């Protein structure tokens, strides 16, 4: 079914109101894993945004094809294959045309395959019945939201390094508590959805 949402609405929805990390819990692993340093967090965010865009466009095409031949039950397997190859493609492309960026992203690039936010974008855009333009905007919004959450978290954690916290709380427990408070703050954006 076609949606009536305007493009800015889709973008805001994916980026702030239903932030992929903080209110839909997608991509928690990289969120907890690489949010230690501001620099790496920004790079990871950019890489994810880029792969999201590529795989979202591919998934949109694949979905059209699958519906044409009546094989919707293969959707999940196809999407995963598409994402894995998109990551591979991006990797080869970067290696050829921008070795500096390729080196900067390093190990993060292959890890993106198992980032559930990417598959999430592909699945949700199918569920909501977006067309190609809407898919692109949705993927950009989701990527921007992911980058935003990751960088905010990285900034907070860099300052927390210097803070004097009890021994027991150190590590993941503290990160989760901070994430909870951030998520609470992001719930304020719910008011934006009319």
């Amino acid at each position, binding site marked *: 079914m076609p949606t009536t949402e305007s493009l800015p609405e889709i973008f805001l929805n994916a980026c702030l109101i239903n932030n992929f990390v*903080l*209110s*839909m*819990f*997608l*991509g*928690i*692993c990289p969120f*907890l894993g690489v949010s230690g340093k501001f620099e790496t967090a920004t790079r990871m965010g950019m890489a994810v945004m880029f792969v999201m865009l590529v795989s979202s466009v591919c998934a949109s095409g694949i979905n059209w094809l699958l519906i044409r031949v009546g094989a919707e*039950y*293969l959707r*999940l*397997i196809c999407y*995963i*294959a598409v994402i*894995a190859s998109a990551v591979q493609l991006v990797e080869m492309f970067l290696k050829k045309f921008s070795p500096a960026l390729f080196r900067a992203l390093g190990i993060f690039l292959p890890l993106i395959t*198992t*980032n*559930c936010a990417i*598959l*999430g974008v592909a*699945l*949700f855009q199918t*569920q909501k019945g977006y067309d190609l333009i809407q898919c692109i905007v949705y993927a950009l919004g989701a990527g921007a939201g992911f980058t935003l959450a990751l960088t905010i978290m990285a900034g907070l954690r860099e300052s927390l390094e210097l803070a004097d916290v009890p*021994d*027991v*709380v150190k*590590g*993941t*427990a*503290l990160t*989760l*508590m901070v*994430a*909870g*408070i951030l*998520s*609470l703050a992001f*719930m304020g954006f719910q008011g934006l959805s009319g």
Partner: protein
Amino acid sequence: MPQTKAEPYPDAFIKGLWRENPVFVMLLGMCPVLAVSNTVLNALSMGLAATFVLVMSCALVSLLRRFIPKQVRIATFIIIIATFVTMVDFAIQAISLDVYNALGAFIALIVVNCIILGRAEAYASKNDPVRAVIDAAGMGLGFTLALLCLGSVRELLGFGTFLGFNVFGPHFEGWSVLILPPGGFFTLGCWLLLISWMNKRKARLAESEAA
């Protein structure tokens, strides 16, 4: 993690439940844990669905471990997992539409649950099918246990119910924050805090005994 050939069966099963619990100790597969643990029923269905996929795909990976070429093993594992997830997706849709709607896209997202790919790669592809299945069952139940830990806290304090039955009487005001997304982060944070406190305490006791 080095696996010796002679690991006894009970050990392969029990380690997944507590000592190497995928969620609380190894911090894997956090996304579904946080997202679908707002009620006990959701947590239980998610846990069982993931356990089924884990056991079936580990069994198949272990049976085929001699035929899968090393270079394409990850892609092969993912295709195997995706096949079982598609089956579970349709099965849940047929059994209970309510549960299906509550879990939403998270059933399909079992594919990218790192616990499953992790066990397939680290254990099932190196061990015989019986051990692989026992290990997978232990890990799956450990995952379910963690989901239940979160789900029961969030449902009890958030709605005042357990599996839909009213526990605290009609005048209980639910802590609605626990049902909302932030509640997931807070509850998991508290569980990790408790576990880290217990570990620290155990270490301290052992130290004072040794001295």
